[in-house]
């Protein structure tokens, strides 16, 4: 063996990089814990850190968690999906409409009687999931077939999904709440002391994490975001995979739409206009790089909690909740700065 001289990065710089790496992985947890501790200490006891309040926080975050999971996959391919809030709304309207149509006559439903609730709800769920999947596939197809930037495509479908949704719903709430049994048994129902929507989000999160980390699906997602040409040459069907990723994001948005109906029994476009930004914030806070190739599904879910915890705590503290937006905005800038720092350090070894 010839002892070839090489340019190894020296140990000190290596340690610095590892420290940065460790910090960028764990700061979000620390930040969330500090937030919780801060609100716990600064609010009257028995208001913030109660199981009822924390459950409420988790319940209201469950939809964003689902959106953020899909968005993580999309952003890791170096794409972006601005339409998921619109898809959520469109799917919820479609599902809700079906539930109302099938559960009884107009008069029965407005009177709060749902003779065929179970059948109607099940079919409504299927329709909502299908609607979400459909729009996700449309996104993927437009991006890969027409070679359009994801930002533009999903900005377009963002408008279209809200537009179509409002056309279907008449621009306001659905005519009546969806069958209350759906909310009672699922959306506001608990198993083992935890709301069912939280269970659902948790299960999806774990499955998505496993697929992202330990299966080819996730490996290809990272590879494409890292170097799509290299992936193509390595024999990966890049376009097909991108379609799959956007379809997955759409499907999960459809699932979030189902949760929306289940938790709140109704839906309206106004409450979902910034869902896409919430999901993207969650992903970015979780350390997923907007440049693609690097990310974690689990931390996106942690990131999804920052805005809800802030809002909830500030309301209890009787501070104007608008500070939440200020704080989240600043935190996002910090998160992206960390990512940049890490990328710059990572490139030094060459």
């Amino acid at each position, binding site marked *: 063996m010839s002892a070839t001289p*090489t340019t*190894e990065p020296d140990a000190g710089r290596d340690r610095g990089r590892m420290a940065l790496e460790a910090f960028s992985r764990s700061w979000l947890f620390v930040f969330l814990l500090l937030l919780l501790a801060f609100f716990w200490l600064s609010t009257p006891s028995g208001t913030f850190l109660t199981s009822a309040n924390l459950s409420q926080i988790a319940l209201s975050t469950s939809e964003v968690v689902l959106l953020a999971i899909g968005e993580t996959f999309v952003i890791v391919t170096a794409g972006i999906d601005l339409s998921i809030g619109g898809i959520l709304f469109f799917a919820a309207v479609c599902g809700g409409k079906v539930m109302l149509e099938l559960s009884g006559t107009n008069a029965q439903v407005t009177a709060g009687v749902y003779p065929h609730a179970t059948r109607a709800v099940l079919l409504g769920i299927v329709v909502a999931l299908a609607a979400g999947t459909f729009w996700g596939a449309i996104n993927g197809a437009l991006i890969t077939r027409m070679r359009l930037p994801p930002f533009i495509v999903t900005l377009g479908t963002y408008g279209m999904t809200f537009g179509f949704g409002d056309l279907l719903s008449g621009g306001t709430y659905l005519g009546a709440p969806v069958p209350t049994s759906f909310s009672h048994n699922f959306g506001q129902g608990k198993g083992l002391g935890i709301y069912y929507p939280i269970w659902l989000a948790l299960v999806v999160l774990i499955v998505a994490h496993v697929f992202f980390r330990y299966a080819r699906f996730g*490996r290809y997602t990272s590879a494409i975001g890292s170097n799509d040409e290299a*992936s193509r*040459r*390595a024999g990966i069907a890049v376009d097909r995979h991108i379609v799959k990723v956007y379809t997955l994001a759409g499907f999960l948005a459809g699932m979030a739409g189902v949760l929306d109906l289940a938790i709140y029994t109704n839906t309206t476009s106004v409450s979902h206009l910034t869902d896409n930004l919430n999901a993207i914030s969650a992903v970015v806070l979780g350390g997923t790089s907007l440049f693609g*190739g690097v990310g974690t599904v689990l931390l996106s879910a942690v990131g999804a909690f920052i805005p809800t915890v802030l809002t909830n705590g500030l309301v209890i503290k009787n501070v104007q909740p608008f500070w939440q937006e200020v704080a989240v905005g600043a935190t996002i800038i910090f998160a992206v700065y960390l990512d940049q720092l890490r990328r710059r350090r*990572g490139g030094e070894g060459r």
Partner: protein
Amino acid sequence: MTATATTPAASTSVIPTLEVRGMSKSFGSVQALIDVDFEVRDGEVMALVGDNGAGKSTLIKCIAGIHPADSGEIFFDGEPVTIHGPKDAVSLGIEVVYQDLALCDNLDVVQNMYLGREAHDQFQRLKEPVMEAKTAEVMKGLAVTTIKSIRQTVATLSGGQRQSVAVARAVLWNSRVVILDEPTAALGVAQTRQVLDLVARLAEQGLAVVLISHNLHDIFEVATRITVLRLGRSIAVYEREKTTQQEVVEAITAGTTSKVPGMARIAPEELT
């Protein structure tokens, strides 16, 4: 350091591992390859040289199945074969290491080695220990020892180390023919050394190696034979030990053969 690693394996088989006969290829009115003959045998490093636009890359892409050739025959182990796409080339055991590397920076060495061909079980779970062990084995076999951990991301590697990963990936799949497109183009002196040693080692292990390079110094260090292309034609094959850099340079630029085509004249029947 030691230049002894450049001694090519003596045992070259008589039947070429890969042989191209009379290959032509045109892009519109540009005749990129005209009746090209080319061969490489087990255990040798065949250098492919020529000026810019001589047709080196086109020839490689036709062999790798990226471009379909207009005409010509390909023989593998003496048997005629057809290559319609990259998959055909790969299944024959032909691997190309491209100039721009084609590695994913954010993935680690193992992940890059197995990119697109990951080992997995029936539940789609990736078999990381298997892939890790095999990667370590190949790296050891090629004496690539400068990479500290095969679990570090490719972004943290030096240019020579990255090139080593790309070459090792080509070897991982029991390939027979490894084609290296300008593997030392962007490297410093020490790293060039590292990669040339690696190229020599591939041939020592019995692989047929095709080395495309502009650098005659590198070529004369590791090549067994040298094929010269000029303006789309194969004009000469030299044995390294029986030629000089001067002779090869003349073949590349002006030419000592009678086959000098000057500007590529395109006969009407050659346009397809």
